Every structure is written in C-alpha cells, then in structure tokens.
C-alpha cells in the first residue's frame, strides 16, 4: 500500500512529444483512497506496431481525475486481452479491484475496431463491455470515450475526458514580437490547434453550449471587441464593438444570449446581448466596476464581480421574464477580494479568484450555505473553469515565472499541472460535453 501511494505521489506522465508544442501533464499530488485499477495494454490485430497505446491514454485519464490509481505496468500479472483470459485471483493479489482489458483490430478499409471490457476483480464479473469503431485520427478520442465509460460505471458520475479545453498562449511578452494565440486542445492537452493568432491581446475565451463556437475578446483593431468564432468553420462574427470596454463574454445556458461588460455609458456595466438581433439589455446601473458576468445553470440569474462595496466581491441578480434584473445581492464576504465567478454545472457552487493575505487562489463557495473553501495554495491563481461534469476545476497559475494551467478536483484533494514548453498559458475554458 505504501509503495503504491508513493508511486502515486509526484508521478510525471510525459507521453511521447510530437513536433508541435503540446501540453504535458504532471500530477503533483496523489490521492489517498482512490480506486486501484489495472488497465492492461491492449492487444493489436493488424500489421506492424499498434497505431496508439489505448491503455496508456485511458490509464492517464483515470489517474488525472484523482479518483483512480492505475497499476504500473511493471506490477501487472499477465497481459490478458479478453475476460476469459483473466485470472481474477492473481489481480486481487496485487490489490487491484478492477481490470480493463481490450484489443484494437485493424480492418481492411483502414478503420479500426476497439473492443474493451471493464471487469470487477473482486466478484469476477464484467461491469461494461463495448466495441467502438474508430479511425486512425480518432484513436485518442476513442480512448477518451473508453475512459468516460469506465469513470461513469465506477463512480456513477459522467466522465469528462472526451472534451476540449480552450486557452490563450502569450509569447514574447514585453517585446515587439509579442503574440497571443487562442488554442483548443483535448482535455488531456493533446492535439492542440490554433484558432486565432494576433500581435494584439486576445482574452476571455468562452465556449458556447453547443461546444462548437467560442466567444472571446480581441484587440486586433487596437481596441477590445467581442467576437464569436465557429471553431470548425472559422466563421467569425463581431458581437460588440462599442466605445470603451467590450469584454468578459459569457454564454447563457440556452446559447441564445451573451452576457458581457460594456463601458460605453461611462463605466463598466453588465449587459445581455440577444445573439439573433444583437440588441442590448442593460443589467447593472452603478458607478462602481461591474464585470465578469456568469450565468446560473438555469439561465435565470447572473453572477458578476463588483467593487460597489469597496473591494471586488461577487454579486447576483435575478432576471425576470422580460430579462430585467432585480437588485444585486452580495454573495461573498470572506476575504478582501473575490472575483470572476465560474458556476458549477449543477448550479450549486461558484468557483472564484479569492484574494487574501496577498495571495490570489481558487476557492469554491457553496451557494446554499455560503461556505467558502480555498482549493489551491499558490499566489497568482486565476480564471477557474469547471469541467462539464463538475468534478474538476481548471485554472491558470504561475510557476517559475511562467503562466501554466493547473487543475484541481472539486474536493481539493487532487492537483495537477499542465504546461506548454514555452510561452505563458492562461485563461483555460473547459468545453461542454460533446453532443452526439
């Protein structure tokens, strides 16, 4: 047991690095009480070497969640590829509760069939078994889908491995070669694709509920404007280009409205834009800073940051049927600084940037009780974003003078770092679940 815990601590998984800069994931803290599982290397039926190590991708996913402790390959007792070949007793003997076996079959048309079984080693029975068609360029995605099935079967909660993250990478900061890149990658950091590159600041990416469009702020015309870009077709639309701030876009849960910050009337206020007509509805009226709107899960409330009480804190308004807002109610009271609320998918929590004692960290506040828990322990943490299943929060932090992404489980027990090889990575936004 001790050996297993030690191996879970400070384990760095650095998978084969392709030519393009990729995010690598480093698990900085293990979790006591996570489920032991063996993901046995998949068999390959085809010519040459297997095109992907499905089992390695699945094991890395499960480990990243903080809920599982995959058995190291050198500790495995045999290499079965189907249930009939599994000697449950020998897997139980090495402390494994669950075993995943499978194989990858190359078909004549160049596609693949990926077959896997999730087995309960204690009871000696199958919990799940699937055969998934795949293509050469989809094998990582198929592996993430397998991780999702395993995660949901064993935890009862939907998996969020087959999702994306969007983020901004800044390079050459402070020089005349500064670039800002808006990128999208798989949730494990692989398969990065640049969707926008600019010499001017790019910020605040926000996924539409359809998982295909991103709203963001770009200074490409010298001033901030809010754009919506279809990630697949590259089609771009200007949503707000008023004098002053055009910032902090946030999609309503139905995808029909965008809340944002405009200062065209003199100082920053929250507005809601109807995406069909681009008509504006003003939400806040106060001489203080009002910014960083976030929608409640039911789309009938807006959270935002305001310093109307003297320092930045989170407030909430309710919207009536016409979209008009009630009087703002203050929600955060602990600490001098609470800003940039991100709402959990179940609507029960908000994650915030919590400033106290000169440190800015990620905290989660339960909305019912008002209880605030600090989840991170650095000093420059920002931009929290919930995974679509609510189990993890991805955020930006600083490490050795560089911006990196990190993730923490909602209970604060599992931590991991994601870092690019160069540049400052910031403002992660976790995508919604893929739509089938």
């Amino acid at each position: 047991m001790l050996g297993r815990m030690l191996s879970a601590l400070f384990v760095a998984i650095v998978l084969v690095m392709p030519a393009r800069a990729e995010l690598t994931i480093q698990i900085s803290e293990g979790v006591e009480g996570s489920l032991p599982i063996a993901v046995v290397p998949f068999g390959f039926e085809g010519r040459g070497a297997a095109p992907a190590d499905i089992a390695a991708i699945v094991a890395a996913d499960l480990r990243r969640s903080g809920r599982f402790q995959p058995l190291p390959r050198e500790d495995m007792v045999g290499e079965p590829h189907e249930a009939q070949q599994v000697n449950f007793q020998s897997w139980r003997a090495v402390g494994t509760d669950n075993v995943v076996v499978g194989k990858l079959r190359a078909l004549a048309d160049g596609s693949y069939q990926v077959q896997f079984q999730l087995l309960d080693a204690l009871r000696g029975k199958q919990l799940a078994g699937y055969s998934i068609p795949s293509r050469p360029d989809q094998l990582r995605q198929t592996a993430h889908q397998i991780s999702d099935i395993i995660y949901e079967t064993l935890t009862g909660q939907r998996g969020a491995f087959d999702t994306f993250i969007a983020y901004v990478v800044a390079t050459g900061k402070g020089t005349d070669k500064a670039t800002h890149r808006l990128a999208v990658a798989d949730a494990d950091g692989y398969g990065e694709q640049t969707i926008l590159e600019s010499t001017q600041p790019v910020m605040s990416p926000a996924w539409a509920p359809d998982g295909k469009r991103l709203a963001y702020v770009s200074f490409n015309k010298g001033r901030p404007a809010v754009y919506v870009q279809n990630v697949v077709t590259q089609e771009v639309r200007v949503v707000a280009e008023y004098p002053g701030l055009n910032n902090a876009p946030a999609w309503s849960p139905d995808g029909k409205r965008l809340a944002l910050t405009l200062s065209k009337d003199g100082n920053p206020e929250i507005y809601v834009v109807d995406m069909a007509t681009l008509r504006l509805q003003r939400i806040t009226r106060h001489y203080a800073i009002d910014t960083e709107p976030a929608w409640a899960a039911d789309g009938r409330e807006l959270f935002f940051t305001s310093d109307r009480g003297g320092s930045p804190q989170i407030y909430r308004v309710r919207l009536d049927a016409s979209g008009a807002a009630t009087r703002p109610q203050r929600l955060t009271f602990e600490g001098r600084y609470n800003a940039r609320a991100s709402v959990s998918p179940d609507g029960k929590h908000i994650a915030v940037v919590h400033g106290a004692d000169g440190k800015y960290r990620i905290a989660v506040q339960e909305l019912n009780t008002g209880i605030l828990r600090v989840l991170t322990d650095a000093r420059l943490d920002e931009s929290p974003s919930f995974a679509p299943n609510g189990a993890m929060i991805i955020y930006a932090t600083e490490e050795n003078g560089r911006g990196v992404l990190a993730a923490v489980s909602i209970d604060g027990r599992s931590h991991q770092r994601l870092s690019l090889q160069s540049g400052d990575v910031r403002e992660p936004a976790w995508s919604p679940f893929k739509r089938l």
Partner: protein
Amino acid sequence: MERRIQWVLIVVFVLGLAACAAPPPKEDAGAAADAGAAAGVDQGADQRQGADLGTGFQGHPLDDPASPLSKRVFYFELDSSQLSEEDREIINAHAKYLAEHPEVNVVIEGHADERGSREYNMALGERRALTVRQLILVQGVGQQQIQYISFGEERPVALGHDDSAWGLNRRAELLYSGY
C-alpha cells in the same frame, strides 16, 4: 497661424529625428578657419567670437526634461485609481498645454498589475485612464482631443512577479501622437 505651428512642429520633429539618426558632427575649427580664409577675411584683424551664455531649452516643450510635460506615466496603489497630489499637478500642466493646443491629441492608456482576475483588471485599467481623462477635461480640453483605452494586465512594462514589477505596471500613460 495654426498651420505655421504645425510646420514648426514638423521641422522640430524632423530635426529631432535627424539628430537621433546620426551623432552630430564634431565642431571642426580647421574647417571654420578655411571658410574664413576663402571669404577673404583679414587673418590679422581682431578675432571676435560669441560666448555661449546658454539659450534655455529650444526644442518642443514635450521634450524638455525640465518641463512637467516630460512626465507622462503615473502610478497607482493596488486596486486604486487615485492620483498623487504631485501627479495631479503634472496632469494639470498637460491639461493646460492641451487646452492651449487644440490641434494636439492624446491617448490615455490605463494598465493594471497581474494580480487578481484579468477582466476585473481590464476594468481597473479603464478606471485609471478615466481618472486622468476627467482631470484633463475639467481644464477645458476638448473631448475630441482625448482618447482612452485600457489594456488591463495585458501590456506589462515590468515582467517580474514581485512588488517592484507590480508597482511599475499599475499605471496610466499619456501618449501624445508623434511622441
């Protein structure tokens, strides 16, 4: 009249550029003597020379290091948009200059340090820019002379992650066109 001022400004600007482009040639006493000889001046007559008594600053007031107008960056405390008394006086001098020169335009940039959230810092940078703008406007400067923009924490001048860097990044900058 206004046109003349513009021309003077352009000439001063071009001279300034030329001065920047190449170091000024050293005074060549031999060449001056040759020139005198060529003009047929009697070498034995009295040699009169002017003494340099200094003429004060001859360039544009925005270039004069002794002028309050040379200070165009103003710093702020954490999460504050309050200007120091000294900076208010300097900004008043800028306002006076702008009121006297309605043809001169200025952009006010507001910035924040990296701490806290990016979008809140964007708003904070704008508030800093607006504080400077308001001070200038009350001196009777035309609104059309002043543009303002916030870059939040996106354009730091100091790249460190400590108090000294943060102090330099919490700022408003006055950018005169051409300067």
